[in-house]
């Protein structure tokens, strides 16, 4: 029974964690907009979510390794450099601020969407429990 509840929320929970991680990568791109030689990075969200949900329940994007003897979780989010854009900066910085701001706003909205879906799931389960 508990497993069923976990499964019902697993997908949106994974999506939420990955959105938060992508938000972090995008924040880093914006923070490093003036750092010489910095290459903009991103997470392929669709591929990462597929990996996270394909993994056995509980080993997705969730658990943190707090001791070196713990089993390594399946790394869901792979941060890879964004395909080179034509910013033409002489200092080797490849951050396109306009594009980053768009990605950031888009990702924030999708994070809120995942949050709302998860909230809906929780409310449905609660009303089933309480009648």
């Amino acid at each position, binding site marked *: 029974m508990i497993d069923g509840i976990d499964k019902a929320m697993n997908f949106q929970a994974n999506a*939420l*964690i990955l959105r*938060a*991680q992508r*938000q*972090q*990568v995008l*924040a*880093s791109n*914006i*923070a*490093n*907009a*003036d*750092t*010489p030689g*910095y290459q903009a*990075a991103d997470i392929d969200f669709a591929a990462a979510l597929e990996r996270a949900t394909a993994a056995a329940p509980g080993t997705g994007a969730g658990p943190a390794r707090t001791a070196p003897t713990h089993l390594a979780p399946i790394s869901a*989010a792979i*941060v*890879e450099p964004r395909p080179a854009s034509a910013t033409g900066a002489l200092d080797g910085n490849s951050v396109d*601020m306009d594009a980053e*701001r768009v990605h*950031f*706003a888009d990702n*924030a909205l999708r*994070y*809120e969407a995942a*949050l709302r879906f*998860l*909230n809906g799931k*929780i409310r449905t389960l609660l009303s089933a429990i309480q009648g």
Partner: protein
Amino acid sequence: MSLAKIFSISGSALQAQAKRLNAVASNLANADTVAAPGQEPYRARQVLFRTEPVQGGVAGAPGVAVSEVIEDSAPPRRVYDPKHPHADAEGYVSMSNVNVVEEMVNMISASRSYQNNVEVLNTAKNLLAKTLNLGS
């Protein structure tokens, strides 16, 4: 908690940009500083950035740190002003090598970057506040 790490990333960027603004303020204040004969005139200070990994954050999402503050190696500005008390034997005074136009551009760029990072922080804060209300 990945979103909380955004505070560290954008916070480090805010600090770095503030240091850059500080250097600009110092340079502009000393744009017309004259050195006495035999003394080294003021040299424009430039702040260098580098990436710095955030502890516990996603690998590949670093913050920013100031790696060093260098002094501009351009020669000092020499102005002919024989009446000036600091003029040398030929009647020239040595002034700082600050390029005022460059510094103004630097200032605008730093303040825009600062604003960008403040907005990133605000977004992360709002998302976290909404996450705290999850399930209620």
